[in-house]
């Protein structure tokens, strides 16, 4: 299939269309509001479900298959924030704090984008390794730590490192992903079976509801697009393509299947908007949240959802 055809297919999925509906709802100033509690509940669900399935798959994975992709993911987590930081400082001329904050977001990962690429591949019936969810967890934290270290060094600050690290690891997205994985690993596929009518079958539907809300959240950030300027818009589209290609390449080196490499590329291309904003807001308060939230939510996320995912799939063809 042509990339253009894949994009079309992807755009016409209920998930992407629900996101569009959310954007429209905000633009026409609808009184539609998702209660915050429901948003929280849906995100708890998504993270736990991703973890559970990943864990149950991992319980049947041999360590020999797993170590190379895990290592490559770690490399991604360390290198991508450094590259992003340099680009943002040199080419974008951003302040240290703002550049480090953005680097943390783009080095880390978006669990919802992971869910979207899974759904995309399943619709095309392209197989990928079951343990990819584990890589989401591995990719989430290191980039944030690396970016914060860069900022500390550049700004010469000291500060309460232990506390920041604890908050990061006990943060809800890591806790739910790792916790779910741990449950899935111990309970195994038989255990997952018992709760499949909640954590497996409705996954895409719940994701659709979540994306409706995400569309509203992202659209509220559109107003800030002018404020962040052209450079950041370009960064929010090009950086993911670079990181995505890099991720696919590392995936192919690690011996992942083509589907697995597409997932790893998408993970690399995605920008965090749960774990990273929370950590950055506390540890780097002087960084302007308009920059990192708008870039991650209003530029990179919709780009990946609509165009990035089929694009990475197309790009993977060059490595396989």
């Amino acid at each position, binding site marked *: 299939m042509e990339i253009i055809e894949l994009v079309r297919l992807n755009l016409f999925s209920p998930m992407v269309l629900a996101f569009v509906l959310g954007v429209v709802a905000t633009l026409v100033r609808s009184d539609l509001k998702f209660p915050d509690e429901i948003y*929280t509940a849906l995100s708890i669900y998504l993270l736990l479900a991703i973890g559970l399935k990943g864990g149950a798959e991992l319980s049947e994975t041999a360590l020999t298959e797993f170590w190379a992709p895990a290592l490559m993911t770690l490399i991604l987590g360390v290198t991508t924030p450094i590259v992003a930081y340099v680009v943002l400082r040199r080419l974008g001329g951003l302040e240290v704090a703002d550049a480090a904050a953005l680097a943390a977001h783009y080095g880390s990962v978006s669990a919802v984008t992971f869910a979207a690429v899974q759904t995309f591949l399943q619709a095309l019936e392209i197989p990928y390794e079951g343990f990819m969810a584990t890589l989401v967890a591995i990719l989430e934290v290191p980039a944030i730590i690396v970016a914060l270290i860069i900022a500390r060094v550049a700004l010469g600050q000291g500060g309460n490192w232990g506390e920041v690290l604890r908050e990061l690891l006990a943060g809800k997205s890591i806790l739910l992903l790792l916790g779910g994985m741990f449950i899935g690993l111990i309970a195994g596929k038989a255990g997952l079976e018992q709760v499949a009518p909640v954590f497996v079958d409705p996954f895409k539907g719940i994701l659709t509801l979540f994306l409706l809300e995400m569309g509203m959240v992202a659209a509220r950030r559109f107003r*800030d697009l002018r404020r962040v300027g052209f450079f950041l818009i370009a960064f929010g589209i090009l950086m993911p393509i670079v990181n995505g290609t890099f991720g696919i390449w590392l995936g192919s080196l690690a011996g992942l299947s083509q589907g697995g490499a597409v997932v790893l590329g998408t993970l690399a291309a995605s920008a965090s908007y749960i774990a990273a*904003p*929370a950590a950055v*807001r506390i540890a780097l*308060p*002087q960084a302007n949240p308009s920059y990192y*939230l708008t870039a991650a939510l209003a530029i990179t996320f919709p780009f990946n959802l609509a165009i990035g995912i089929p694009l990475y799939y197309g790009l993977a063809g060059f490595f396989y």
Partner: protein
Amino acid sequence: MQKTRLKLVTIITEAILEDRMVRELKQLGVRGYTVTGEVRGEGTRGLPTVDFDGQSVRIETLVGHELADQIMAYVAENYFADYAVIVYSLDAEVLRSEKYL
């Protein structure tokens, strides 16, 4: 019944700061506090920062006059520069003032 005039200090700030603020208020010496989650608003800083966590919280604490001033000064010093936050105090009358002082 004996009524005493205290100060009701109110802080409205980003939801992400709730736990930390409460910890610090206790260190400053408050004996109690009440949090109203899920408030929303706008000020001079623009959009609330982190949508994921609900938007803002209101933290209220009944304290003596001196501690009220200390809390306001503390918030000003530590949060005004970088966070979306306001703090104000009202005059309140309570019974059992020893509970708050």
